[in-house]
């Protein structure tokens, strides 16, 4: 055994071993009677200390602290705004010593899921802050209560009662150099529906059109298409940018590469230098709108206004301390110091005249408060996708907007009808019984020819494994059965049984063409391609690197290992965001390197091939270390005697690799490949963070599609659960097929 330079790993190993040994020591001292009964076996072999450890952890620390009069407030504000809020709460506490306000800053990305989860078990906050346009959704899910009467804009009322108190208002304004005439192009994130809504307001095109119960996209109407054509001309004449996202625009303006940007009031702290002035969007009217001609824009450029509001959460409808705090928040000037514009005129009047917050408020004055109808949030995604397509020249305004309308209607599809459960129960019972008999027979057959195992009767083995079984059942089994149950229900607040309707809807693509963009089959094909490419690349790179580092001097080898494992040590969401930034069209490292060779910048996420490539490149980088480790271990298992014999015979290096090493390596790699395939198939971070499904949802995988159905399309949860169950069933089928295939081959000798 060679041990020389491996003291540290050895120390780790000793530690790990000591933990396991210590956890199981009582078992060791008493483990004798092999013929004793089942119960005593359980006691002996159960690994009591590890169970005690588990129980101790579970009970010892689980004491919750109850406190007297508490008001909890959740928010997802950024650092600056969170500090201002905390300062206000500290002041409020000094005046109200009898109650305790607990503020929680929920990290970005966790707010929706957190609020929904907490609400479902009655652990939600008393108050929370969010944008007012989510009000209807919260109201429909019975998560919020009406607040006491006070003067509020109509946008936050339902049936005359306020369901939110607006605190600050946000919207788009024009940032320009002070005292200079506007020069084109203007940087405007104009392929996002929220951002470009002002354009349509100038053409008097409503966002949504209602006709009795039916809702349609206003922009997809005749006037909307005409307005879009005008917008397209601005893009083509390069008066407006279409490929600048908000961050790029911000940087370009700060670095003086561009003189005017349309951005939200929320970036004011980063942009408002001395020589920068804020103007309403209508200041652009003369530059962008054709005037005096036949089809000039009739109206004004008016941005959407979003109220950052405080909500009173169900079931604290009558909680007077919470109501009082909500009122205090609405009456106080909490955020003007960080340049957030107060929502109410009375509060704005208390802001000093010299404050730049007043400039921002004036620029927002002609904005239109956003409609809080629940359909509004569903309209953005289809419209964004349509605008991007038009800007890239991939579709005409007519066809793209028609597609947007279809997608929007698709999201509004009514819930599946309730099904009666007895027939399903009967079918499930018959299936379960049949399966039970089948498994019994199969077990009988195998137990005759089954190999003798070292651990004696099977019950012993369960005893050894019991702590693991308990934990796995709770954290893996429970979610699994939950999703199965959920997939047969509507998954709404007043959930009901729908049988297989969710599966039927997915598999028939809700009545649309089966191969249409975003259909289950199409996404499945992409996912299969994704999995094949990634796993092939992982295995190739893993084996190559393992071969390369084999036989290096120990010190070099350690260094090589550490470097090659680097992608593994960095959190995958960090790497994914870094790759997204590297593939950025204007500022990304990759395009800058291409520019060194004289190539023009590539819009990586504008085409399927390049976007898919970016995803695959990211995931190959993230995932090859796993195969590298597995392959290194596999190479090490190739007997040295065999290798030496082959070398003595004068075999070439290629020959040795293919004939001696590869057969062993590929056999030992199989479990790793099987696991890697599963993980790649269900890889969520990369597609979600790198391409985000662009272009037009074409690079979406089954897993990210399921996520979007669950959390961002306002679809009932049952539909998403059915998606997850289908993924599970597919992989199960796949693995059964490959196992059956493997079974035919003779097993290699160990």
């Amino acid at each position, binding site marked *: 055994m060679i041990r020389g330079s491996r003291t540290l790993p050895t120390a780790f190993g000793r530690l790990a*071993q000591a933990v396991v*040994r210590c956890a199981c020591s009582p078992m060791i001292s008493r483990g004798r009677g092999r013929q004793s009964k089942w119960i005593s076996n359980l006691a002996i072999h159960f690994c009591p200390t590890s169970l005690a450890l588990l129980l101790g952890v579970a009970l010892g620390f689980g004491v919750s602290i109850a406190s007297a009069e508490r008001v909890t407030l959740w928010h997802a504000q950024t650092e600056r705004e969170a500090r201002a809020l905390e300062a206000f709460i500290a002041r409020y506490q000094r005046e109200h010593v009898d109650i305790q306000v607990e503020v929680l800053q929920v990290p970005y990305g966790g707010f929706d899921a957190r609020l929904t989860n907490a609400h479902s078990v009655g652990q939600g906050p008393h108050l929370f802050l969010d944008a007012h346009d989510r009000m209807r959704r919260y109201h429909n899910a019975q998560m919020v209560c009406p607040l006491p009467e006070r003067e509020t804009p109509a946008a936050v009322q339902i049936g005359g009662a306020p369901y939110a108190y607006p605190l600050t208002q946000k919207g788009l304004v024009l940032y320009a150099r002070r005292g200079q005439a506007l020069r084109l192009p203007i940087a405007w994130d104009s392929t996002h529906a929220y951002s470009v809504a002002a354009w349509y307001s100038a053409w008097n095109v409503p966002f949504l059109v209602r006709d009795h119960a039916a809702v349609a996209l206003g922009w997809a109407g005749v006037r909307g298409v005409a307005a879009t054509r005008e917008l397209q001309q601005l893009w083509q004449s390069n008066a407006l940018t279409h490929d600048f996202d908000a961050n790029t625009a911000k940087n370009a303006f700060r670095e003086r590469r561009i003189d005017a940007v349309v951005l939200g009031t929320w970036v004011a702290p980063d942009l408002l230098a001395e020589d920068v002035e804020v103007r309403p969007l209508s200041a652009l009217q003369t530059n962008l709108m054709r005037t005096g001609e036949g089809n000039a824009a009739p109206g004004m450029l008016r941005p959407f206004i979003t109220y950052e509001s405080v909500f009173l959460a169900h079931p604290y409808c009558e909680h007077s301390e919470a109501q009082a705090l909500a009122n205090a928040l609405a009456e106080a000037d909490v955020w003007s110091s960080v340049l957030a514009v107060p929502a109410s005129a009375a509060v704005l009047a208390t802001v000093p005249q010299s404050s730049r917050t007043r400039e921002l408020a004036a620029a927002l004055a002609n904005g239109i408060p956003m409609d809080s109808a629940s359909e509004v949030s569903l309209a953005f995604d289809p419209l964004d996708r349509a605008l991007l397509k038009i800007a890239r020249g991939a579709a005409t305004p007519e066809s793209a907007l028609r597609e947007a309308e279809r997608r929007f209607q698709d999201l509004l599809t009514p819930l599946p009808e309730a099904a009666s459960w007895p027939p399903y129960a009967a079918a499930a019972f018959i299936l379960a019984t049949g399966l039970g008999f089948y498994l019994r027979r199969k077990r009988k057959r195998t137990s005759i020819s089954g190999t003798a195992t*070292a651990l004696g009767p099977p019950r012993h083995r369960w005893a050894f494994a019991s702590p693991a079984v308990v934990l796995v059942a709770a*954290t893996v089994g429970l979610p699994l059965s939950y999703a199965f149950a959920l997939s047969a229900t509507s998954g709404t607040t007043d959930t009901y049984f729908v049988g297989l309707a969710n599966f039927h809807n997915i598999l028939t693509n809700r009545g649309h063409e089966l191969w249409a963009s975003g259909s289950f089959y199409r996404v499945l094909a992409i996912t299969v391609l994704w999995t094949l490419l990634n796993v092939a690349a992982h295995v190739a790179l893993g084996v190559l690197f393992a071969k390369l580092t084999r036989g290096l001097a120990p010190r070099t080898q350690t260094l090589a290992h550490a470097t090659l494992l680097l992608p593994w040590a960095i*959190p995958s969401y960090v790497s994914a965001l*870094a790759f997204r930034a590297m593939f950025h069209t204007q500022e990304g490292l990759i395009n800058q390197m291409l520019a060194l060779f004289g190539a023009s910048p590539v819009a990586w996420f504008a085409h399927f091939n390049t976007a898919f490539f970016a995803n695959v490149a990211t995931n190959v980088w993230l995932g090859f270390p796993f195969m590298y*480790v597995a392959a290194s271990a596999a190479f090490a*298992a190739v007997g040295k005697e065999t290798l030496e014999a082959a070398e003595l015979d004068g075999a070439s290096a290629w020959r040795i690799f293919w004939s001696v090493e590869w057969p062993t390596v590929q056999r030992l790699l199989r479990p790793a490949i099987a696991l890697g395939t599963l993980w790649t198939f269900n890889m*969520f971070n990369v597609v979600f963070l790198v391409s985000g499904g662009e272009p037009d949802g074409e690079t979406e995988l089954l897993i990210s599609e399921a996520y979007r159905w669950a959390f961002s399309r306002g679809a009932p949860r049952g539909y998403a659960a059915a998606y997850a169950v289908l993924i599970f069933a597919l992989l199960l089928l796949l693995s059964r097929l490959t196992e059956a295939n493997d079974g035919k081959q003779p097993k290699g000798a160990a």
Partner: protein
Amino acid sequence: MTPHQAFWKTPLTLLAVVAVVTVPVAWILLESLRGEPETLSLSAFHVAWGNGNRPIFALQFINSLWIAGSTTLLCLAVAAPAAYAMRGRQHPLYVFLLRSQMFPSILASIPLYALLDRIGLLGTRTGLILAYTGTALPFAILQLANAIESIPRDLHEAAHLDGAPESTVFRQIFLPLLRPHLVVTGLFAFMGAWNEFALAATFLSREELFTVPLRVASFASEYDLQLSPFAAASILSSAPAIALFYFASSALTTNQVEGAVKG
């Protein structure tokens, strides 16, 4: 151990490969050092660390260490006997665990949340440790079971013919053989817990209890990504993991089982 070197021209190829692999890391490092205007500066690290009087990052760092460390130890203590008990890939538990990896876990947070609430562990570090242990277990058991299967069958039989009780066989024969695999498995459990975001964001409700990934994510919001502090926080968060990998890297690829058997 040197005969293959000539053919693969190892050092040069390796250097090129290493360069490509490290580009994204180098880029993150550069971003974190970017000051305003274009200078090298450590200001992003100051922002990431938390300004002045609130040592919040340090606290969250300790939280992460405690949570990931406990997860690792608990996971090993539970997984090793289970893997020993299964002894092979035909065991129903093995099959179930492998199947469980096929399920997309994005919907798992909902029932787990309700479960932790029921046993009063919601919003505690302990609750998170249990959840992480549970999610790390399937892979840990699979890995250790594979390792055990690679131990020659003669060894099992020889031990049992000697009449040694089950527990002695496990402790004195299998544990030493499993040592490098325990390191690797532990490393996996640690990394999983160290980098996990979604469950932590959903379960924890006080900033003092937050873990490092939540801090890193706080520099990315719906509207903008503060790239420099984000990169700086990423580097601070990856440092312990990188150190661990460096120390454990040779254990990752050695095969002490073979050595012991032949030894």
